[in-house]
């Protein structure tokens, strides 16, 4: 998660092989737990603090889920390594 693996320059430590595959993409178990906890708390939290007149609780819950998504995106780094090839030379 917040281990700052030099992602700015695009380098990634090669020995950090602790990601598993779920649904066609890689995740780190610790980060996944963090994301699930964050999103669950924000979603249900927002639902319960909403005024009890439908459809407000649902709407609050949805916004809560999106807030959780935004926070998770901010604190977790994607487990992807981008390599940009210059295509021109191959044409």
């Amino acid at each position, binding site marked *: 998660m917040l281990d700052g693996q030099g992602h700015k320059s695009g380098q990634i430590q090669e020995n950090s092989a602790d990601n598993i595959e779920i649904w066609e993409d890689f995740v780190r178990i610790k980060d*996944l737990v963090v994301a699930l906890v964050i999103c669950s708390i924000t979603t*249900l939290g927002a639902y319960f603090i909403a005024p009890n007149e439908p459809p407000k609780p649902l709407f609050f819950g949805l916004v809560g889920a999106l807030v959780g998504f935004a926070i*998770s995106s901010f604190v977790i780094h*994607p487990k992807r390594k981008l390599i940009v090839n210059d295509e*021109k030379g191959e044409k």
Partner: protein
Amino acid sequence: MDPITLTQMIMAAVLGALIYTIIGIAPGTDETAVLAPVTLVLVLTGVDPVVILTFFIASIVAKKLTDSVPVAVAGIPGGVMAAPMVEHALVLKKHGRSDLGIRKMASGSVIGTLISVPVSLFLANLLTQFSEVIKEYADPLFFIGAVILALMSRNRWIALASIVPLALLIQGLRHLYWGVGVVPEETNVFISFFLGITIGPVILTLFELLIKDKRDTMERHSHKEIAINKNDRVKEMPNPFKILSRQELGMSSVSSLIGSVIFIMSPVGITILLGELFTRHIKDPVKRASLAISSMDGLTNAAYISGTLIPLIALGIPLSPVAIGPANALFNAPPVFTLDHNMHHILSTTDYIWATIIGAIAALAITYFVIVKYSQQICAFVFKKIPHEAMLGLFFGLVLLLAYMDAGWINIGGVLLIGIVAGVLHRWGVNYGVQFMVLYAAPWIITKLIG
């Protein structure tokens, strides 16, 4: 159509197009998983049905346009439906022509949309006269649908064998909830079970992570390496009729037409079949691949639009893999929509036409333009900034919320149980189509079982 509704429809279309331009690119985003929950929430919040339909049409057109982008740029499918195209897209990428791939696919999508909208409206009108007969047999039809989809899948015997046990699980939980009094009798818990099936594979994996031995033996990876090609930006305004060759234009039109007519079958299966059939005779790999991806993309788009519109307009019951999956909330989202009172009963033909046209045009105008011009930048942004964990967290949060709303805390356990079973079945090769049909057919199956 009053100006206020019209403005709302245009806003909904733009919003749907923008959201699904981003989501479409993220790898592994299953169409049902990303479209169904959002549409559901919109329906439940009481948004005007015609606005929701506009949003949905814009979303599927945008999603179908963009999920082929990562295929062309990086060779990973942005969605289940894009998977059959990977092979052909990789050929183009190998020859250094992924820019060409994107333009061909996006143009194929445009053709698919243009053809399927009038064809769907026409077919729906034809089918309307039989709708009374079809509706009368809706319950057994879902069961027959489950059996047919099971027989057509690759693992047909396990799919067939799982129908009754899954129906028992679903009805068993419903009877438990009635018995302990968390939901009133005769209220069928539906939405959260539907979502439980959708994210079943993820729930199963999450549970497996709790098993120490399993966790230790799981394959570990470093990072997913994604190579993308840097290419020149397209300067002029892209025109699909110029981008596609005459043969590609013809083939994508024909495949779109076929995709619309056989809306009741699994889109992925037809895509693979027709894609191979249409291109077998071409030798030049680049030409073959461009023809394949343009006609496949046309077909998936057409299958999506007609699979939604035809059952919605003609029947009001979700009798197609698309209608029962991603578009499900338009048919059944209790208490707002039920099979006896949903968009089919509320909207007029004019509403359908306006919603479809506004949704499709907004999505084509925004998404087509954006992805043909900025495909590489968008891919780089999504791959670098959006972690997969956050996507999974978002879906998990939504499932928790809807589970709690359906039947309180006990239902969170119930949805996890359904998720585990559905996840195992999915891994064994029982596809979503079969499982969703069983979800609809469960009450009928049980009454027939006890005679």
